[in-house]
């Protein structure tokens, strides 16, 4: 079920009404669990079984792990959990890619082989809930936390609908304790939650879908090379589109949870105001970067095993992080380029006194702009549907195309530039503060006027409930 659909509005109204009835807390939790399964089943009912498998496997694996005294047995149980979860993820997400790649390699060496066609539907949000539930078993294995005593609370942690299909990826210690005591939003939480939901929807429906997707569609789906201006507009528009799409979704998820009385941490913090790439990854899809740091980069040795090993660990983490985003080698390259950015940044820090440099006027701002452009270039691997289009876009960007097409209309050039400038200024202005701080400083009348405007424009824009870009991950 999409947040920007009428079905969700009806669903959420019913969930809110039941959640606020004078019922026992356990009954309310069961209701939330059932509602979460309905939310997921609304897309494709049979895939709820995958959620159940993940829940049951990790519940029993973690409990057995905590009872086991021998390290070998604990490892075996961890392997079982990893195999079950990553096995499902691999089959549904990477099965087709691996088969196609295998066939290509086999054919390259001269063996004629045609694989059976794999018509696999990717279960929505599988990457998100797989990582979320894996963090629970790994934490128990590492004895960072005890296994959960309530199956209901654990099942709700795996399935909680506001962040089930596209994050933020919440850790057990952030969410499970909230299920222990009755939750009901205060009036202020409810109002703020509704505002965050409206703001998230506005970002998604109006900015990302209503304007920017047209520009990226025109440029990335053009029949041949596009003009330099159009190519840059397309790439920069996609940078903004993916931010508003994904940050908008996260904002909706946070707002919906808050309306029910639950707290979910932020997933974005003005990412396009990042100065440098390590800063970018502290601001972009925070819950994923922290997951990769805690469950991949640090276990690989992090920066504790020498410089060369640090670089290898960084590259490995970013390559796998890239592949997490999608079943295409383009995502691997995307991750690889980010890995190279991070390694280069570390190398530069060895030869340049960055603290001194950053103290100079304008340098941080110029650094943020440079970071934005470098990050934007990597989005080409994301937005292009195949390698040919990637090549075509890079050639267009650097004026290497013959007879390029003009595809972006004057109005969309105007709107894209307007949105990009506004986005970059806003990110820079609030780079070190939260949205709540901004609301604090805003007069009530202005806040009301802003809310009315975004709500009205969102409703008027409507749209055909197009899916969030990150659903495919």
């Amino acid at each position: 079920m999409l947040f920007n659909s009428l079905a969700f509005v009806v669903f959420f109204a019913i969930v809110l009404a039941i959640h606020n009835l004078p019922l026992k807390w356990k009954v309310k939790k069961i209701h939330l669990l059932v509602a979460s399964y309905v939310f997921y089943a609304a897309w494709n009912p049979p895939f709820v079984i995958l959620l159940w498998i993940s829940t049951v496997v990790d519940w029993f694996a973690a409990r057995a792990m905590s009872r086991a005294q021998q390290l070998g047995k604990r490892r075996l149980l961890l392997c079982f959990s990893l195999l079950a979860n990553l096995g499902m993820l691999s089959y549904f997400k990477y099965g087709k890619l691996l088969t196609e790649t295998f066939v290509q390699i086999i054919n390259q060496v001269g063996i004629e082989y045609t694989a059976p066609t794999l018509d696999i539907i990717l279960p929505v949000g599988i990457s998100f809930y797989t990582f979320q539930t894996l963090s629970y078993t790994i934490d128990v294995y590492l004895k960072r936390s005890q296994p959960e005593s309530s199956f209901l609370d654990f099942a709700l942690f795996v399935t909680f609908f506001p962040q089930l299909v596209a994050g933020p990826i919440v850790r057990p210690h952030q969410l499970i304790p909230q299920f222990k005591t009755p939750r009901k939003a205060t009036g202020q939480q409810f109002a703020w939650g509704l505002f965050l939901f409206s703001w998230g929807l506005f970002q998604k429906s109006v900015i990302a879908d209503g304007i920017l997707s047209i520009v990226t569609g025109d440029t990335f789906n053009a029949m041949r090379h596009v003009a330099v201006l159009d190519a840059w507009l397309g790439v920069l528009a996609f940078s903004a589109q993916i931010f508003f799409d994904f940050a908008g979704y996260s904002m909706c998820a946070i707002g919906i949870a808050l309306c029910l009385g639950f707290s979910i941490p932020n997933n974005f913090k003005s990412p396009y105001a990042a100065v440098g790439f390590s800063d970018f990854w502290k601001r972009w899809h925070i819950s994923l970067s922290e997951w990769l740091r805690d469950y991949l980069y640090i276990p690989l040795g992090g920066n504790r095993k020498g410089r060369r090993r640090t670089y290898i660990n960084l590259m490995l983490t970013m390559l796998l992080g890239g592949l997490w985003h999608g079943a295409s080698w383009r995502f691997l390259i995307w991750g690889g380029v980010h890995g190279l950015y991070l390694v280069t940044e570390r190398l530069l820090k060895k030869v340049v006194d960055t603290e001194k440099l950053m103290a100079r006027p304008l340098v941080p701002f110029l650094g943020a702009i440079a970071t934005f452009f470098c990050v934007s270039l990597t989005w080409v691997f994301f937005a292009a549907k195949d390698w040919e289009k990637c090549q075509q876009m890079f050639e267009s960007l650097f004026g290497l195309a013959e007879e390029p097409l003009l595809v972006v209309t004057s109005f969309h050039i105007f709107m894209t530039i307007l949105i990009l400038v506004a986005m970059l200024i806003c990110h820079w202005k609030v780079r070190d503060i939260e949205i709540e701080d901004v609301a604090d400083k805003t007069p009530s009348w202005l806040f009301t006027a802003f809310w009315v405007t975004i709500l009205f424009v969102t409703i008027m824009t409507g749209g055909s409930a197009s899916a969030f870009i990150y659903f495919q991950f």
Partner: protein
Amino acid sequence: MHSSTSNSKRQLYVRPLPVIKGYKKILALTVVWTAIGIGGVEYYARANSFPVMFEISPDLWVTQWYKTERGPEDQTVIIGASRCKFGLVMDTWEQATEVRPTMLAWPGSPPHPTLHLLAERDDFRGLVICGIAPSFSFSHAAAPQHLYLKKNIEEMKVLRYSLSYHLGTPVRRFLKHQIRALNPPAFAPAHVLREIVGLQDRHGTLPPFLPIYWMNHQENLQSVYLDFSAKDEELMNRVKALWSRIIEEQTVFGVADMDSLLAAYVQDVQRIRQRGGQVVFIRHPSSGDFREFEEKYYPREKFFDRLCAETNCLGIHFEDYPEIADFECPEWSHLNSEDARSYTRRIIQILSSHQVKLKP
């Protein structure tokens, strides 16, 4: 400052909240002002008699497809590109034949994928009216128009089990019919802003800027020109600019591999025919540069005539029938609403004259 609480690992995480004074009043004012705004748009839409309009989205096509699955085995189905959606008026068809056809035509798309789906359905033994727009029907397989229907077909497989779709469709349908303000893109602020800003389009860019309500897309996939549109020469010129661009792009990809395409058509037509069904190909009228382009790149003897001959199907080419030969498309590709009704009646007469079984 907002009331912040630590989010350190083992403490209960509580989101900070802004200290907004009078949040109840803000919430109430937001609801009231937003409702007033929507009410204003609703009044404007009703005062101007704006019809209910649906966006062309895959779920509309999927809904029509599911309708054919529930329909009788000998139903009538219209497939093809947008010329069918504009040119064949289902109300007129129903009045003349007492049979309501189902529209599965899709803008800018070749008909073969839908024909193939119908051929694969053992329960289908009806009449297929297959519109042939040469530039889409006979385009190279790499041309982007082959992707449009593919997306619908993928959605059709997924939405079958989607509770969201089955719940959302009636809710949306109900609201659309009650509230004219919910008619994007007609009132989409970006669209309105574009009209206000009024920047001159760069030469050749897509899509051309078109005003609010110049045509109406209905939920049954029927498309209709609003009466004023076809008389607005400037508007028609903007649409012609779009076709000029499409014509230019068509030449990039070239034409289909006709041998393999025809083999696929023959196979699918045979399967439908074996079950008692019938397929009729119709080449709807086009005008101006579009017609010239189609005649030059897709000469009928090599494409349309060959398709009809090899599949052994009835083929109706508008040039062959004086009663439909002189229809003019105001923007080169589609008939206006009045002509469409007349055209539909004449098509039915032609089909009857060929003993096509229009009634079960």
